[in-house]
């Protein structure tokens, strides 16, 4: 009777330790959260800001940074955009070309392709603006375990949109690798991106 409890506890603890080391047992150190194997590979069919339909294949070999937002976004999206731009521009120049940010607008009612194009170019001209009809966007969001929702519009027709604040990082093969939380410092994003883009080169 007396030895049973510590035994069970030690079982649980060793289980926890295993789980932890499983999570942390990385060969490389990353600043962002590693999500290897936790999310499916990058796959989408969306409309680009120039009106073309594009798939993930289009940017194969590139480190792709996918994130969700809308152009009327008051704070989160511009901050993310600015931070990402800063992080990428701090990379060595030859590696900058290995990185493609993908901005997916989840507000197709207001974000026309033209408007999306202007918006992303304002921040960083290598950013690809993407959108689609709502059902397609819902499917994409579900695939990456995220969602978005709309507030009731006010009298001027403005409404708020809830969406993921994270950036999903996929390597050149389209494998989900990192999740950048919004509070991750810019220099740490740069470090991770350099490491990831460098891997793709070697």
């Amino acid at each position, binding site marked *: 009777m007396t030895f049973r409890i510590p035994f*069970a506890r030690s079982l*649980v603890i060793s289980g926890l330790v295993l789980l932890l080391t499983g999570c942390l047992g990385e060969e490389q150190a990353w600043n962002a*959260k590693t999500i290897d194997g936790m999310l499916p590979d990058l796959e989408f069919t969306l409309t680009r800001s120039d009106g073309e339909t594009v798939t993930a294949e289009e940017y194969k070999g590139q480190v792709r940074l996918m994130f969700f937002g809308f152009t009327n976004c008051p704070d989160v999206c511009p901050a993310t955009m600015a931070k990402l731009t800063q992080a990428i521009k701090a990379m060595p120049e030859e590696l900058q070309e290995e990185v493609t940010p993908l901005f997916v607008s989840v507000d197709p009612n207001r974000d026309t392709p033209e408007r999306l194009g202007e918006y992303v170019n304002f921040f960083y001209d290598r950013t690809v603006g993407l959108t689609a009809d709502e059902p397609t966007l819902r499917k994409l969001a579900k695939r990456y375990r*995220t*969602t978005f*929702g*709309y*507030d009731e519009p006010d009298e001027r027709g403005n409404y708020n949109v809830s969406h*993921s604040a994270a950036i999903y990082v996929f390597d050149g093969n389209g494998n989900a690798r990192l*999740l950048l939380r919004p509070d991750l410092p810019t220099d740490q994003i740069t470090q991770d991106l350099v490491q990831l883009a460098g891997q793709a080169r070697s």
Partner: protein
Amino acid sequence: MNWNLLLPYDFSPLTILAYLLVASGYIVALKALPGDEKPGPVRIFAFFLGLLLCYAVMQTWFDYYSQYMFFIHRGQHLILHHLGPMLIALSNPLPILRYWHRQLAPAMGIWALPVRWGYNIVQQPFIAAFLFAGLVYFWLWPPVHFNAMLSRDLYWVMNWSMLLDGLLFWWLIFDSRSPHDTPSLGYGKRILLLVLVAVPQMVLGAWIVFNRGMVYDVYEVCGRAWPMSPADDQLIGGILTWIPPAMMSVVGILILIGRAMKDDRPRPRHRLAEELTP
């Protein structure tokens, strides 16, 4: 009404199969049982209500909101870990279990033994209480919670582990067999277990409620179902972790006190005699 809301958000064939098996297993046994062993309509209703509640939070649009709102996720676990299993255990499905045991035990042969051992280990009272409260802590541990909400596989493991553990625990508590004539757990011990699991859940819930920072940022990272203030979401979620589970324990204790009073019997004479002689 939008009937689509009754369809699964994340369709899981295994889950649906499991629920179908349990429901049809219950009905088959019910029909086969002799009249005096058959559960009455109230018990049948309680069983299917519990089953339906658990199914609804796993395989309807409720699951969508559970994935993207912390407080709804807490509501989901309240049903999977407490309310649903509690109703199922209270419905006393013992005759049904006995029926299937009679049917399946011979076929299982040697395999029945390890299953029984495993069952006895997880139903050891302290292990059961530790597992019950421990699972709540484990899945609400912020890094684990983040992964569970991000990885689809882990999310399913989380929900199923909560449901199975809930069933085991509440069955231990509400076992209909009297401890006077069977080795089932004594009423005092059952009440003690209910107190033991309530306290850590209350502490955790209170910690979430009074935490000023953001404890579970995964809902911020992955987007909410609608634009709701993260602080409100966390507050309501914390309250749902704190108050209702404690109330469930109180309800459980009241039921057990009622049973213990009904089941009160004079102590066997020989024991009384032993006590009287110094």
